[in-house]
Structure formats: C-alpha cells, structure tokens
C-alpha cells in the first residue's frame, strides 16, 4: 500500500519534463524581476543626484562619480523627518493594538455566542471587507469633521482600525471556530467568566492568527497614504508616506532623489518586520483561512 503511494507520488513528479521545469523557472524569474527591478531602481535613484535621475540610457547602478548620499543627507536633516517616523510608528502601533483587541473580541463573540442578529452582524462585517476604505472617502471625511478628527492622529488611527477590523475579525473567527468549546466550558465550570475565557484561552490559543493579522495591519497602517493625506494637513502631524508626497511637484518639479531616499528609509522597518515575523504571515493566515 505504502509502496503504491510512493510510486504514484514518483509518477506525479515525473510528469514534469525538463522542458516544463525550465519554463516554470523562467516564468518565476520573470515574476521576480517584475518585483525586484522597481526596488533596485528606487535604491539606485536615491543614490543619484536629481538631474541625472532620468538620464538616458537607463543605468540601474550609478557610477562611482555619480553616487552620492546627498539625498539621504537632505532628507535626514529635514527638521521634521523623525517626527514623521514617530507619527507613523504611533499610527501603525495604535492601529495594530486597537484592531487586534477589537477584532479578537468580536471574533470570539461571533464564534461562540448565539444572539439575535448574530448572522446579520457577521454578514455586515464580511460585506464591509469588500469595500475599500478609500471608496468612502467623502462620507468618512464628513464623519471626521463632525468628530473633530481632522488634523489629529486619532483621525487616522480610528479610521484605519475601522478599515482593518472586518478582515481581522473574519480571520480570527475562523481560528477560534476550531478551538474546542470544552475549553470554554471547563472554565465556566471552574468559576471563570466570559472575560476569563477571553483572556486565558482565546487570546493565547488564537495568538497565531492575531499575530498574523497584526503584522498585516501594522504594515497597512505604516504604508497607507490616501486617507492620512486627506486629513493630516499640518506638517508636524504627517506620516512618512504623506511626507514623501510633499516632494511631488514641490517648486514645480519632483525631487525624485529625495522621494526615493525617503522611501528607502521608510522601507527599513517594513522589511525588518517582514523578515522577523514572516512565519506568522504564512502559518497564521493559512491556518485561519483554510480551517475557517
């Protein structure tokens, strides 16, 4: 029996001829190039003076005479650079924490409790996943004005939290659905409350899915530009992506060297987070999604 299985597996592998395999790798390399070239171009442009950024023929790697750190020097010595970094980190961290708390509680309630309107609530949450946050820019802006959230970091944090919570809830709920109910019941019998279960069981056992969505939410909040540009008008409140856009068409031209230098700097935390937490991207997301 086992031999048969082995053989069939071998057969399946043998199906791919060397020609097929090479086509596969050529396609993969093409995909990789499409992803990597803009990044290389970005880094290289950040090291070139602005006037030769668009020189022809295109050179991905600047010559030794051309290479300069002046763009970085300018960006880093802008008076507000570290304020931008700080704002971005505050927004991203707060969004992550709030959305993790909110979506894990929501997911726990929807997964475990039977209450009138439960299915409707869950359907609404799922439906809102389909609408991109920016599509509701105008009503959201009106809402932000009403609650005096324009020119206020809370205006960014709260709206980001609202945007990412549906998907996070969906994912964490899928995970919680697979946690045996007996674990909750044992706590009820032992004298615990709903909050004991949430704190002692759900937060711990659903942590892979919470970690996965948190990484996503952090990166989302770190990178988002449309909404924060709409409501953050004061320079000292800007986040990094918004700050980058200030170089566009400033003095009737775009200083691409500055744009790319700042983008490179902004990418560092993103890459760090991805490298450090990449296993949560895959394990958390797939387990929640497949089982859910």
């Amino acid at each position, binding site marked *: 029996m086992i031999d048969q299985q082995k053989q069939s597996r071998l057969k399946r592998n043998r199906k791919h001829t060397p020609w097929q395999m090479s086509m596969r790798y050529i396609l993969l390399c093409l995909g990789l190039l499409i992803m990597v070239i803009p990044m290389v171009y970005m880094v290289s442009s950040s090291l070139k003076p602005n006037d030769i950024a668009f020189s022809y023929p295109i050179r991905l790697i600047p010559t030794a005479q051309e290479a300069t750190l002046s763009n970085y020097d300018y960006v880093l010595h802008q008076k507000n650079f570290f304020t931008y970094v700080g704002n971005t980190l505050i927004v991203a961290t707060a969004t992550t924490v709030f959305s993790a708390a909110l979506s894990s509680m929501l997911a726990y309630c929807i997964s475990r409790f039977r209450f009138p309107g439960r299915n409707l609530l869950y359907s609404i949450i799922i439906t809102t996943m389909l609408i991109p946050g920016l599509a509701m820019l105008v009503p959201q802006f009106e809402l932000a004005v009403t609650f005096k959230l324009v020119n206020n970091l809370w205006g960014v944090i709260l709206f980001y939290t609202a945007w990412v919570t549906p998907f996070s809830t969906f994912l964490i709920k899928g995970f919680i659905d697979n946690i045996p109910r*007996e674990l909750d019941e044992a706590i009820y*019998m032992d004298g*615990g409350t709903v909050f004991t279960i949430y704190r002692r069981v759900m937060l*711990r*056992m659903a942590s892979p899915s919470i970690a996965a969505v948190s990484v996503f939410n952090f990166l989302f909040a770190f990178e988002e530009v449309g909404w924060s540009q709409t409501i953050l008008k004061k320079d000292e409140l800007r986040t990094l992506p918004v700050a980058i856009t200030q170089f566009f068409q400033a003095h009737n031209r775009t200083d691409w060297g500055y744009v790319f230098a700042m983008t490179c700097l902004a990418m560092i935390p993103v890459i760090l987070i991805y490298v450090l937490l990449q296993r949560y991207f895959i394990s958390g997301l797939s387990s929640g999604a497949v089982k859910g």
Partner: protein
Amino acid sequence: MAGVKLSHVYKEFDKGNFAVSDFSLETGEHEFVVLVGPSGCGKSTTLRMIAGLEDITAGEIYIDGKLVNDMEPKNRDIAMVFQNYALYPHMTVFDNIALSLQIRHVPKDIIRERVMAVAETLGISQYLNRKPRALSGGQRQRVALGRAIVRQPKIFLLDEPLSNLDAKLRNQMRTEIIKLFHALGTTFIYVTHDQVEAMTMATKIVVMSDGLVQQIGSPREIYHHPSNVFTAGFMGSPQMNFFERCPLERKDGQYTLTFLGTRFLLPQEKQQQLSQKNVQSGEVIVGVRPEDIRLATQEDDDKVSALLEVSEMLGNEVLLHMRKAQESFIIRVPEFEDARFSQVGVAETTLELAIALSKIHLFDAETRVNLI
C-alpha cells in the same frame, strides 16, 4: 457529600425535537451513576444539564437538596471531565490543574499544596512542568481528572472520559477511576456508550434510548431483569439472542412456549410469575443470553439441534454462531467443553443444545416490555 435529583426533566432543542424527555433520577450521597446508551440518546445532554452548560426546557434539578435550574455552572460546586480532556495546550500540567483555584483566588501556597497532593494521588508529579502535548493519552486523562479533583467538588461529572484511550489503557484507567470514587466518597455521574464500563463501574445504571430512560437499576438488576427488549439487547456482549413471534400458550393453567422449532413446558418459577401477572396466550419475544444455552448432555430433555456456522475462540471461552431454520443465534461455551470449537473450519456441524429455561426472558411482542 451530596446527591443529585432530577425530576421530570425535558430538553427540547428545536420545536418538537426532544433530546431528553421526562428524565427522573435520584442519587445517593456516595453513588457511581452511569448513564449509558447509544449515540444520540441524550445522555451527554443530561449530564450537561446537570452541569449547567445546557438550559433545561422543563423539570427541576436539585443538587444537595438545592434547586439549581437557574444557577450558574460555577455556583453548582461540580467538576466535569470532558471526553477530549479540555486541557489548555499553552499551560503546563501544574497550571492546568491549578487553574480553577487560581480563578477563585485561592492563596498560592494552598494551590501549590493541593496540586502537589492531587498529582501524587494520580501519579503525575513528575510531569507537572510539562505541556499537555508532551504527555500520552493516559497521562492527559489523569491531568483532566486532577483538574476535577483539585477543586474538591460535591459532584463529579464525567463525559465519556475513556473513549479516546486504547483498550488496555481504558481498562487500567477504569480501575483507577473506581479507586478514586472510593477514595473521594462523593457522587460520580458518568456518561458512556460502552456497556462494559457501565457494568464494571456503576453502582447504579441508567439505560437511555431516544431521550427516554429505559431502566434504572444496579448492574445486576439491569443484566438479569431487563425491563424491555432495548435494555436486554444493549447490556451484555455478545448481546442477548432474541426470537421474535414465538407462541406462548396457556392451557389448564400451564404455560408452554414454542421457539427454535421446539415446544417447551416452562419451569415452575416462570409458570408462577406468568400466572401472577395473568399473562394470556399470544405471541412473545423470547430473549436468551448466550451463556444460557449450552451443549446438551445425554441427561438433558428438550434438546434443540442447530447448525454450527462459525466458532470464535476467545481464549477462555468459545462463541458459537448457530443457525436453526431462519433463526441465527450465538451461544457461549467454556473452552474446555469441546476443543474442536477452537479449530477453524468446523462449519456446518449439527450440535445438540440445551436451554436454561429458568433464565429466559419473555417480552410482549407489541410493547416489547418484559412480561415477568
């Protein structure tokens, strides 16, 4: 120490769909009650109602004389052991056992002392720092028991705690649970679909089917005096042989019974029981346990001859699958009775059998209730 009383308890899941109907039971202060029945008979639902994990549709539940219908599970002073252990994988064995005390804010030194004592009793002291995934099935089950014991509750509820274990471990844990029952001196309510567990552990068995109590009694009563065909068939392995539509005749105050193609005059004791109940002539279902049919000797009257189809050697005994006309039945004979039954390929031999008529059961063909 406390007892549990359930009085006409009902549980309705959907409109008109009753998982449990008219369930009444009263336990003593130190009793091992086993709820037994096939899957979906409502035994786990009953246990969960006692625990407070399910609301009851109608009726009353009392624990220690107190009505607990609307009482939260945590206030009922009961502990429950779940089928899948319900251990927290992110906590050590110590924390798993200590959790209920931690939730109740018991001082740390007392928690430590009690957990150590429980671990000692269950022989899991050396695993206290391990996580549940590093334990075997039996050890996990012990931790689950430990978690229940450490609270020193009035009542223990056990929901098929052994069904995830292999046969050998199940036997071992069965003995340990019985020892624990005697050591703790409290009431255990135990749910199982395994009639062997019910027979070996219980002081009182509740046989259930389709949400209804079929019979309540001691293992001996249930085995020897089953109240209906269901109980008779469910308890005992291999199950009781039933012969449907057998004519029972009453003539001149004497009862005769025809089954397996033979007409038997019932023994004196059965005659008396039947006439006391004023049972009239008619068709009955005859139930005979496999051990109440034996190989006939020369002295036996009323021999029945039947065809041997298969013999199953179990070591200390042999099960013989017999056939007579359309009726198939099983008999259990000691291994020494005839060595040839332990051989393979003895099929199609005709054997002479004797039936212990004093031990047969007669059930009403319509109501399927025991007539005697």
